[in-house]
């Protein structure tokens, strides 16, 4: 029943998800990997799983990535 897709996606949890604290503790490292074109999700699957599932941490990731790729990097 496709009408339930959004609910199903919301309810799906990933056991690799490291949670907010651990993801935020290494956010700068993860962002540098992404900015450098490295396989960040492959190297840090628990962080990747968290950033996909947690809206606020995903926003922080997007903001930091924009900061380091948006001309504020020498």
């Amino acid at each position, binding site marked *: 029943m496709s009408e339930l897709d959004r609910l199903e996606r919301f309810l799906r*949890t990933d056991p690799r*998800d490291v949670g907010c604290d651990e993801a935020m503790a290494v956010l700068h490292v993860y962002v540098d990997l992404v900015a450098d074109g490295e396989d960040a999700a492959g190297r*840090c699957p628990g962080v990747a799983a968290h950033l996909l599932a947690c809206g606020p941490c995903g926003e922080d990731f997007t903001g930091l990535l924009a900061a380091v790729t948006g001309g504020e*990097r020498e």
Partner: protein
Amino acid sequence: MPAQDLDEESSAWLRRLGAAGAGRRVAERDLHARLVRIALAEVRRRAASTPVAGQELDDVAHQAADDAMLAILAKLADFRGESRFTTWAYRFVILEVSAKLGRHYWRHPLVALDAGQWERLPDRFGIDPERHAEAAGVLAEVRRVVEEELTAHQRRIFVAVVVDQVPRDALVAGLGLRKNAVYKVIFDARRKIRRALVAKGYLEEPGGSGDE
């Protein structure tokens, strides 16, 4: 993630910020100016999702830059070179913007805490219970799990975040909770609801995609 040798730019920042006298002050001014630019860009990027606007939004950005600057200088010795220095430093200002927008949310809240707007849940998931009897059953089961299987504390958090759409950073600030504690409540509630919906035959058993 092992610490790496410092890149040239990071070394230069540490050298300048660790210098004495005028050199250090210039470096601090340079870094602060960058933090202000990033904070202003970040509050504007988030403007559509916060009730904070206008001059107050700019004030949040400047406060975030000031507080981030203090934190960076206080924690300079903690920088281990796992990332570029600037990425490490910018993380402080991004997280400050998040936290400050969460606190400022309650000056102009879009929804009150404990509003309990269950009637809006179908829209939240794009479900039309008028069209499908099964959808109505699913929504009723979600509500039953929330009301019967969660503690009062868990229920309050779930209803605020999922039903009433209170931003998580605002809820963290409003209830004085840790971000991870709120996430854990939602994470556990999602698992409970999913189990209940699978047991009732509304959803299939999770597959092998890394899901539980």
